[in-house]
């Protein structure tokens, strides 16, 4: 079951305009840089991007914005912390002027929605966000004396993730905090594409240390490890 694709471009070539695409990574850590650049080169439009953060870190994500490929963002921490920096940032300007729609969720709800999509759970009640703007327009219900918000599953069409090591059948292992959103996005999407720094044969990853079982991963691409300086921009 060989899932290896020869290049990032070939691995994302069937992502259509209008697709819902999840991008792994937390700021500069564990981001699918090569696959995101390939998506920018592909030039498809009207994308809904699921991502932690837009303004900060990973500049290749901004290529999607500069190319006007993004219709909507679903995320958790979309903006620069600094209002001044944010004001100069194209993404924030487009959001302000209503050119890109943004939907934000608490971090736990954001990942739980994707997990629900991957695990076949339609909806769940969480205490997070109860009594806040996050609960606006949503059903709430009291369990054990505490208000909970009903949140529904989120299932991306594609997930682009970055892993440290992957075998040809899609078993993945991440390194340290670069695991972050990559694992849940991989299990959630209809089609998951993984770029891996080390491509190995089946059996070369300790079976007890696989983070993402290969069944969740449809495509694997070998990429070089980049040298990244962690920075919140």
């Amino acid at each position: 079951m060989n899932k290896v694709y020869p290049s990032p471009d070939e691995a994302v070539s069937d992502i259509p305009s209008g697709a819902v695409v999840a991008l792994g990574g937390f700021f500069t850590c564990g981001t699918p840089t090569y696959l995101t650049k390939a998506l920018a080169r592909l030039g498809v439009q009207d994308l809904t991007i699921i991502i932690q953060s837009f303004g900060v870190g990973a500049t290749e994500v901004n290529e999607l914005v500069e190319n006007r490929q993004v219709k909507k963002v679903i995320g958790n921490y979309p903006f620069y912390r600094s209002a001044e920096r944010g004001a100069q940032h194209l993404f924030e300007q487009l959001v302000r002027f209503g050119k890109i729609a943004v939907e934000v969720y608490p971090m736990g709800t954001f990942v739980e929605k994707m997990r629900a999509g991957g695990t076949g759970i339609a909806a769940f009640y969480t205490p997070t966000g109860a009594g806040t703007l996050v609960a606006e327009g949503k059903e709430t219900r009291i369990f054990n004396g505490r208000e909970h918000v009903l949140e529904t599953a989120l299932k991306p069409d594609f997930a682009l993730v970055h892993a440290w090591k992957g075998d040809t059948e899609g078993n993945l292992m991440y390194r340290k905090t670069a695991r972050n959103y990559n694992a849940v996005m991989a299990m959630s999407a209809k089609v998951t594409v993984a770029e891996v720094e080390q491509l190995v044969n089946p059996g070369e990853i300790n079976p007890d240390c696989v983070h993402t079982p290969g069944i969740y991963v449809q495509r694997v691409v070998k990429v070089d490890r980049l040298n990244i300086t962690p920075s919140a921009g």
Partner: protein
Amino acid sequence: MRTLTIEGLSREMVALRASKEIHDGTYVNLGIGIPTIVSNWIEGRDVILQAEIGMLKTGPLATGDQIDQDLINASCEPVTELSGACYFDIVESMSIIRGGHVDLAILGAFQVSEKGDFASWLNPDRGYPHGVGNIGGSMDLAVGAKRVIITMEHTAGNRPKIVKECTYPLTARGVVDLIITDLAVIQVTPHGLVLKEGYPGLTTDEIQAVTGARLTVAQDFKEIDL
């Protein structure tokens, strides 16, 4: 009556005061801002830091050769790992937080109300569309941590940040246990706010004057205990 031009505690000293609320043998999550500084005051203690991004036993900030691009904190700063650290994905990290496994969260805020509501994620002045802001892990920590402490400046300019009702969008309702500012330590109780400690030399009336909600002075009120 004198004019309040007092400096109050530095951010470092607020963090030091907060560090005294941390018990040995506990798991703690530190938010962005003053809470991050708390980590400087607990080095070597038997306290385990949890990081939203998916880590237990986060160590001090990494410098020089220690920097590893795959090892950052929630503020995107390179950090180190202590012996016995472990990594997990953000689903697990949020299970740890929302599921009630973290003993204490120390967070920042724009406002805290006398009911223990607080607002920390959306500054309406930035002018984003309705309901859009940087939430991060704040709402999950607010509802999930066994104890929530807010560290912040007592006022924003002349405006009190401790208020009767928050006017900024809330992070969570009724969850704050203790407020530590540059001027005071205030406990949130079912009967309202109790002023426990004050900046040396400030009277309780002076603290009340810069506070937007009624303070009850604790019987054992004292100078801030550093």
